[in-house]
């Protein structure tokens, strides 16, 4: 009973947006307005989430919870970025250069680390899941595409091999298409369940 209000609000706003989208000829200005409202509210939701994160870490520092050093790092870096950005302005080149100096090396280093972790993960998959159709086809495909993507060998000059290679390169499209359709059907079903209130009723 307590959950009825959000379910009704979700259903009404969802159906209005769907109707506005389907009859765009008459509802175009309202569609833009509702979408603008959604952008503002979702931005505020993100701000609330970040505020909640920062408040939680401040609480960890106050009570001296284990690993509160990390919380200090998070709160200091958050406040420094926010205060400096507010004072200097979001478009200030020095501020943006400072942000880039922190974020770009961290992201690049993480990406490099991912390459090494993926390598060990690929070996681990055979140990954890054993030899099955899925793992063998995954391993063979990974080896084949790694070999093809390295570009050590050129197949342009050999007509027969060229056709085989181009057909092999199209094989992942079949699986990707099946996975995309599966995910899309799942998302569609979930969206309809939210609109009809079934997602909440089931809980």
């Amino acid at each position, binding site marked *: 009973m307590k959950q009825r*209000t959000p379910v*009704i*609000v979700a259903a009404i*706003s*969802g159906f209005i947006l769907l109707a506005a989208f389907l009859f765009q000829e008459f509802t175009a200005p309202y569609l833009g307005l509702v979408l*603008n409202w*959604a*952008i*503002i509210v*979702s*931005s*505020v939701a993100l*701000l*609330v989430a970040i505020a*909640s994160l*920062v*408040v939680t870490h401040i609480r960890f520092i106050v009570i001296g919870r284990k690993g509160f*050093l990390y919380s200090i*790092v*998070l709160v200091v*870096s958050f*406040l420094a*970025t*926010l205060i400096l950005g507010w004072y200097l302005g979001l478009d200030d080149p020095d501020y943006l250069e400072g942000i880039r*100096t*922190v*974020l770009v090396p*961290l992201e*690049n*280093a*993480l*990406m490099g*680390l991912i*390459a*090494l972790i*993926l390598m060990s993960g*690929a070996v681990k998959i055979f140990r954890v899941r054993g030899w*099955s159709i899925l793992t*063998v*086809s*995954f391993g*063979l495909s*990974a080896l*084949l*595409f790694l070999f093809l*993507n390295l570009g050590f060998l050129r197949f342009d000059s050999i007509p027969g091999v060229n056709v085989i290679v181009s057909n092999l390169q199209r*094989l992942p499209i*079949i*699986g990707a298409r*099946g996975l*995309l*359709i*599966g*995910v*899309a059907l799942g998302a*569609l079903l*979930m*969206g309809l369940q*939210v*609109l009809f209130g079934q997602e909440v009723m089931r809980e």
Partner: protein
Amino acid sequence: MSTVDLLLLLAGLVLSLMVFSYLLGDTLLFGIAMYTLVGVSAGFTVLVLLQKVILPMAISPLSAFPQTSAFLALVPLLLSVLLIWMLFKKTSRVSGIPLGFLGGVTAAALIIGVTRGTLVPQLLSIVNAFDPNKMTSAGLPNWTGIFEAFMMLAGVVAVLFVFHHQKVKKQKDAFSNSWLDGLTGFGQVFIGITFGAIFVGLFSTGLVALIAYIQYLVDFAGLW
């Protein structure tokens, strides 16, 4: 190179070395690097949201007060206040209203986006493979085109069937049918091939980043 540039380069080097300390099992430096990333990203996100969304889209329209646009701007503002109320009282019933609004709008956008952006184009591309013009060439059957079209259809059906069959098999342990198991295996081959190709794409990107980082180290060492 100026002193500021050198300091920025040094800061970047230290931060990336802290990330790679993960390989030595040093979780303290890695943790500091990760929490710095989260803190800076969160601070920058808050700033962008405030200066590019909240102030121009929600606060500024209020200045034109007797006009309709100002009254319309009150609606998201009210919803935002109800949402912020959640920070102080987590079990508040009124906070459910903006969340419900967001849920409904997201669900509707999901239905529209998924239908028009994914489902219809993907299904059409399968149907278009059976286009008679693609299946014939100069009045004769184009066997490659026919094979590709049927392979595409069978592959997609098999991949979709994998998920359904796994779910049914979990529900009924004893259920086994060689024909259905065969179709599932066929689907698993395509899933494996796709994941293998995606893995290689990710791995190559990571490798390029790693090589760029090593080059960065070499360049830094070359300064002296």
